[in-house]
Every structure is written in C-alpha cells, then in structure tokens.
C-alpha cells in the first residue's frame, strides 16, 4: 500500500461508494408530489462529482456512465423534465450500476457483460423517457459540464493545414488568456526531421493549463474553428478539495512539460509485466500473486476505520494536557520537601486521574461509529421488498446518530436484515387486511436506536398484526417445546420463536418464513454479548429490541470472591444474587445440590469444583451467598464467598500468551493491578453437566 496512486484510488472508491449511497438515500427520501430543488441538486452533484473523480483517477467507464447520467439529470434539475416514479426506479438501477462499476474497478476488472447490458438498456430507457417527456420550454443543452472547478487541462494539436488556412493561432491563446490564467507548454513531439519538413504544414501541439471558472462551453468555443476529430482534449483540473495526481502538480508548480509526464506515465509498467517480459516469472505465478494481494487488500480495507478529524483533535489536545500534568508531577516530586508540594502533588494527581479517564473514553470513542451505517441500507431494501410484495409502507429511522462499536456494525447487518424482512413480510398486513382492520393502508416500520444505561437499544418496530400467542403456543406444543397443558405468559412464549426451526408463518414466502433465521438472529446478538426483547400486541404490531453492550472491549461485570481468588461474572448473564441458609440447600443423589427458589429447583454449583473438577472444601458458613445466572435457557445458582461489586472491566485475552481455559472467557486487570478471570457462564454450565454425566 505504499503506492501513493493506490491510496488516491482507494480514497476515490470510498468516496464513490458514499456518493452512490447519498444518491440512493436522496432518491428514496424524495416526495414526488413536492420535489425539493435541493434534492435534485444533491443528485446532480453526486453524479457530477463521480464523473469528475472517475475521470481524474482513470476510470473511463465510470466517467462515461456517470456523464450520461448527469446529462439525463440536467433537464430534471432545470425543471424541464418531471421526476416520475418510473424515472426514480431507473435512477435507483443506475445507482446499482454505479456500485457494480466501482466493485469491478476495485478489482481492476471490466464491468461484467450482464451489467453492461443492463446499463445499455437503462440508458436507452432513459433516452426514450426523455423524448416522451413534455417538451421543455427551451431545448435542453447538449451534455454540459458546468464545472465551477479550478479550470481545465487542454491538449491541443493544431491542424496540419492551419497555416494554409490562415488560422490565427496566436489569437486563440489570447482568447483563452481572457478566460483566466493560462499556462502553456509547446509539444514538439510530432515535429519531423528538418529534411522532411514541409514548411507549410503545421506540426505544433500545446499542453495548456487554464485556471478559470468559465464553463467548459466557453473554452470549447475558442477552439471552434480548429477542433477536428480528436486533436482537442479538454479535461477538468482536479478541484482544490481533492488531491491532484503527482503529474498535475509537477506540471503546474514545477513547470514540467505535460508531454514528458505523459511519456513517463506510458513507460510505467506493472512489476508483473516486467518480470514476465524478462522471463523471470511465469504469467500464472504473477496471476496467483495478484490474487493474493487482492485478498490481503480486502482484509486491510475491512480493518480500517474512518475517524472524524474532530475526534482526533480532541485526543491530541488531551495528550497535550497529559504532558503538562506529567511535568507538574515531576516538579512536585522534585521539590518534595518544599512547602505545599503535597498539595501540588494532590492537584496534579487529580488532574491526571481525570485526564486518563477522558483519554480512555475518547480512545474507545474512536471505535464508535453512528448506527446510521447499519440503518442506511434499509430504506432501499424496504422499498424493494414492499414493491415485491405489493405492500405500501413507510420506513421511519430514528436516532441514527447513536454511536456503537465499529465491530458491531458488520455483525448487526444480518440479524437486523432478518428482522426487517420479517416485519415487511409477516408483520405488515396486506392493504386489504389493513383496511378491514381499520388501520391506515400504509404500514409503518420504525428503526430506532438509543442508548440507555450503558447499553445500546435498537428497535425494529412495525404496526402490523403482531405475534399471535395462541398460534405460537400451539406450535410449541406441537414441536414438543412445551408440555400440552402449559399456559405460559407472553414474555415466556415469545422467545420461543427464536428456537431453531420454529416458524409460524402460514405460508412460506420467497422472503422469509422458513424457520431458519430467527435462531441465527438470537445467536448473532448473543455473540455480541447482547439480548433481544420482544413486545407484541395482536393486531397492533410488534417491537423487537436488540440490547447491546456499548462495546466489545468492555464488559459490565459483577466481581465476586471465591476463596482467595476474584472472579468476574458478565452482568448480562446474572439474574440476581441472594443469601440463603445452609440448611436451605438440599442434596439430591447424595452430592448434587439444589435450592428451591420461588417454587423452582435450581442446581447449586461451587465454582471451585466446576473449574478444578475436584471436591472443593465446603464452607462451614451458616449463610451461603448465591449468584443466580442464566445461559442458553438454563439456570444455576453459583455459590460465592463475597460480592465485591459491580464494575466495568476491560476484557483481555488469555489466549494471546497462554491458552483457552474452559469456563473462562478472558481476564481483566483489577484496580490493584491483579488479574481476575472472567467467567464464561455458558461454558461453566456445560462443564457442570459434563461433570454430572461423568459422576452419574
């Protein structure tokens, strides 16, 4: 990744994807009855920037396509052409094509034939529609490029008969000079040897940089009488906001003739080509290596985070403050015997404390990205699904600025996609059913994110017909998940839809209802250390709430003491803690201990025994402290010696230098510098049932 061009290209791809996303979002958000001119401008600007950037970074296919798109958008922007639902649909397809283009370009491949055809068909469509559209009051201008950028680079070869025709080349430059600041380099590459020079032929060519805000049409006009065939090339210069290619800088700032830059660029060969040409490597070997490089590159891409400059600035400031505090401390320590040094030390320590805490928060903040990154893909998806199923619905997004750990973003996409699909497919009723139920014909799906009590909540809410408890109960009994006479409350019933193979959809549709998925949704969310709450009312709709920890690197824990050691229970798996009398714990089959809690028998486990496998010394205490934990629907009461408190702990891996330990999910460092192990409740329960089988 040391190639600077490579970095620019990557920046181009990133920006191109963002532009495509913004086009899509704008298209989906537009109200066709009352189109905001600003939205049209946004669309146009996106297409325009894409075109400009693609041209600059050498992706002619993308530039050509976006150029055509831009010309279709121009009359729309001018108000000469109405934005119809059909046109929106086509523009959405165009956005998809742009993405395919970007994808292909990233892999340095041409656009696949299928997409190529789609593109041609789409352009033909747009052309037709344009022709059929109400005649604009004034003829739409030919594909314009109203660049208000910094200007143009022009390569101009004078026609061979320029002298004979009496073309005044000098005037040409004067006219150009009037448009702005002109830099010119003669290109004498085509000049023949003196003996073969025909004095009346013109062999001159120029490279020009024109710094000007004038539109391209004005520049073209200057060359009106001399432009023929391909002797004139006008390209926009890189706008100030972007990084120009090194060649352009060399030309503008250092006066290197563009012809030389072009020649140098033409000589640049790929390493692979050189190796193949000199017979040092076989073409297959180079291909393999390129494949590997692409793989690595993809991995590297996934591992980078774009961080707002503002966040970085705050960090820099904070580190500056820390340095000052450090100096204060050093001074206070040096003059330790002086008067008031103790006080100074205390002040500095207090400051240090605040700063380290803030530094930690801010550094963690770098990993945080707005939830918008997950939400943004749903408007399009819902739009497509609704169309596919003939349902009318609105998607409402709330709390998009809520931040969550970057790692969550990728891992949230699948479960959320599943929930949203379910909401569209099963949640929202058909138009007829809604009308019959006296609901507005348009359904609403709301995605809402907010943080509460150190957790991020993400809701997927629909105003459809909700979950039917009776049907779930029937199904659960059918599948043997519940005894035939069970009458559970809704809160116990609803989670059953997460059981593998459980689907109450009457009809298996193309979209969902195959019973795979809901269990995967729950697994994914659990893997993130979160859980799902379901609230639903028959006929009114359902709300699925994903409750996630703020970050994967920090865990809410309950610290306990068992013997001489400190352990941490993840708070997410702790239900409650309570004290009981020694006599309340009864033994079954001699050594299995249980306790009756609100009419339910819950196994009592001794941590030492599970972890060490041996029979730990039984405490002779009269009262026993128990922590009730739950994992995978199983509950157990863990006996501990002391509850030390509830605190956030930073998760450290045991595996980096040691190995995985059963029943332990990691380690953390306590305030006094000691290491405490974090318990893996799920693993512990599995260990215990394993032990039980052995002893049985």
């Amino acid at each position, binding site marked *: 990744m040391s190639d600077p061009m490579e970095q620019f290209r990557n920046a181009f791809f990133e920006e191109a994807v963002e532009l495509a996303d913004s086009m899509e979002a704008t298209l989906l958000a537009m109200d066709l009855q009352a189109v905001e001119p600003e939205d049209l401008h946004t669309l146009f600007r996106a297409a325009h920037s894409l075109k400009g950037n693609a041209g600059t970074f050498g992706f002619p296919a993308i530039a050509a396509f976006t150029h055509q798109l831009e010309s279709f958008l121009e009359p729309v922007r001018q108000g000469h052409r109405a934005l119809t639902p059909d046109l929106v649909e086509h523009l959405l397809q165009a956005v998809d094509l742009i993405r395919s283009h970007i994808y292909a370009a990233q892999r340095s491949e041409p656009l696949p034939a299928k997409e190529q055809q789609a593109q041609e068909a789409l352009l033909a469509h747009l052309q037709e529609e344009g022709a059929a559209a109400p005649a604009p009051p004034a003829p739409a201008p030919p594909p314009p490029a109203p660049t208000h950028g910094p200007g143009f680079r022009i390569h101009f070869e004078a026609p061979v008969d320029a002298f004979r025709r009496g073309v005044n080349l000098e005037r040409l430059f004067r006219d150009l000079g009037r448009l702005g600041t002109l830099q010119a380099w003669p290109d004498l590459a085509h000049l023949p040897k003196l003996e073969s020079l025909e004095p009346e032929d013109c062999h001159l060519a120029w490279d020009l940089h024109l710094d000007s805000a004038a539109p391209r049409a004005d520049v073209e006009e200057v060359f009106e009488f001399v432009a023929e065939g391909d002797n004139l090339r006008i390209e926009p210069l890189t706008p100030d906001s972007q990084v120009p290619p090194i060649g352009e800088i060399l030309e503008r700032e250092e006066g290197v003739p563009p012809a030389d830059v072009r020649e140098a660029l033409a000589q640049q060969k790929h390493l692979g080509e050189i190796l193949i040409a000199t017979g040092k490597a076989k073409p297959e070997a180079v291909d393999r290596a390129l494949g590997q490089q692409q793989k690595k590159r993809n991995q590297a891409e996934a591992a980078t985070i774009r961080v707002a400059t503002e966040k970085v600035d705050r960090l820099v400031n904070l580190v500056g403050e820390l340095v000052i505090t450090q100096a204060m401390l050093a001074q206070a320590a040096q003059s330790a015997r002086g008067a008031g040094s103790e006080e100074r030390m205390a002040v500095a320590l207090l400051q240090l404390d605040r700063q380290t805490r803030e530094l930690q928060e801010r550094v963690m903040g770098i990993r945080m990205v707005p939830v918008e990154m997950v939400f943004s893909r749903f408007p399009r998806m819902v739009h497509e699904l609704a169309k596919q199923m003939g349902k009318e619905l609105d998607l409402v997004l709330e709390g998009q600025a809520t931040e969550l750990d970057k790692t969550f973003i990728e891992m949230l996409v699948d479960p959320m996609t599943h929930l949203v699909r379910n909401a569209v497919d099963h949640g929202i009723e058909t138009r007829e059913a809604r009308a019959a139920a006296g609901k507005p014909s348009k359904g609403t799906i709301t995605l809402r994110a907010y943080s509460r009590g150190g957790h991020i909540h993400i809701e997927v809410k629909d105003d459809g017909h909700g979950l039917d408890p009776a049907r779930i109960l029937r199904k659960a009994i059918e599948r043997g998940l519940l005894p035939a006479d069970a009458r559970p409350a809704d809160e116990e019933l609803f989670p059953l839809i997460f059981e593998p193979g459980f689907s109450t959809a009457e009809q298996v549709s193309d979209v969902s209802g195959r019973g795979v998925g809901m269990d995967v949704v729950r697994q994914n969310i659990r893997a993130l250390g979160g859980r799902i709450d379901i609230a639903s009312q028959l006929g009114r709709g359902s709300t699925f709430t994903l409750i996630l920890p703020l970050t994967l690197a920090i865990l809410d824990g309950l610290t306990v003491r068992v013997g001489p050691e400190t352990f941490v229970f993840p708070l997410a798996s702790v239900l409650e803690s309570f004290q009981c009398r020694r006599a309340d714990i009864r033994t079954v089959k001699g050594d299995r201990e249980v306790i009756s809690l609100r009419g339910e028998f819950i196994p009592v486990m001794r941590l030492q025994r599970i972890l060490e496998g041996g029979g730990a010394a039984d405490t002779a205490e009269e009262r026993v402290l128990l922590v009730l934990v739950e994992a995978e629907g199983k509950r157990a009461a863990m006996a501990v010696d002391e509850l030390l408190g509830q605190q956030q702990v930073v998760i450290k891996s*045991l595996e980096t230098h040691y190995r995985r330990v059963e029943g332990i999910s990691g380690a953390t460092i306590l305030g006094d510098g000691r290491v405490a192990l974090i318990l893996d409740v799920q693993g512990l329960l599995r260990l215990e049932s394993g032990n039980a089988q052995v002893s049985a």
Partner: protein
Amino acid sequence: MSNLPSAAQTLSQVLCFALAGEAYGIPILKVREIQAEAIITRIPKSPPYMPGVINLRGAIVPILDLRQRFSLGDPPEGGRPVIIIVEVLSRTLGIRVDAVSDVVDLDGSAIKPPPELGGQAQLGREFIAGLATQPSAQGGESMLILLDLDRLLSDGELHSIEAAAP
C-alpha cells in the same frame, strides 16, 4: 534452534540464575525483562508448575515455575523469587526462579553436551542444551546448566497451546 552452537568460536551472552543451589543460564536474547515477584492469579486446572498468570503492563502473561517443573521442591522460607520475562515462539512468558545473578559471555568451546544421567535426573535432561564451565570468583571453576528454552516451553502444558491454536 539449539543453544549448542556448532561453531566452536561463537560467543554468546547468557543470563545466569539460581535454582535450588544450582546455576542455570538462558540466552540473553530471549530475555525481555526481569520482574520482582508479582501477584499470581491461579488458572483452574493448570499443573503445579504453571501456577497462573500475572499482569505485565496490561498483558496477561502465564508463569512457569521452574522449581516445580524440575521437581526441586518448595523454595526456602524468606526467599525472594524473581520472574524472568522471556519471549519464545512469539509468546511472552514469565519464568519463576530463586534469584538472578549476572550476565556472562560464554565461548562456544566452553559448552559441553550434557552427560548421560540416570534415574530421576534423566527427567529434565531433554531441556538441557549443554553444560558450561566458567572461572568462579574464588579462583576455581563453576558449572552452569544451559537450558533449551524452546524445548522447555514447547513441552507439556504449553504444548497444548500449539494444539489448541487454530
């Protein structure tokens, strides 16, 4: 990589430490730092010679107790064991020993292969890279047991690390 150099002229630096009255040495290049005894957190089901992990500036690092490993019995009362932090096979590990003495330059020719030892002593032989003699302060010669760290750490308990790795 063995600590027994093939070229007799190689000069290597060795960190010497004491263990139950004997002098041992390990190549200094593997040593990252030396720590005073830290609080060790026990890891469940680990063998007696792996008493647990410590916090090394935020990293969780396992400890290998050499006395236990070589069945040399418990350390004497009042001793102040030291932890030598080494890096082997890209893992960091602490080795608990009785005391660290000094760093010596060893001439390759001074290193002899370990003799055949019978019975109980044979147990630890595979971890010994060689024996070296060096002039002692009293004018005589003392013996230094050179350990093969890679062997020592890829054995037994730590071996399961490799097995568990994907």
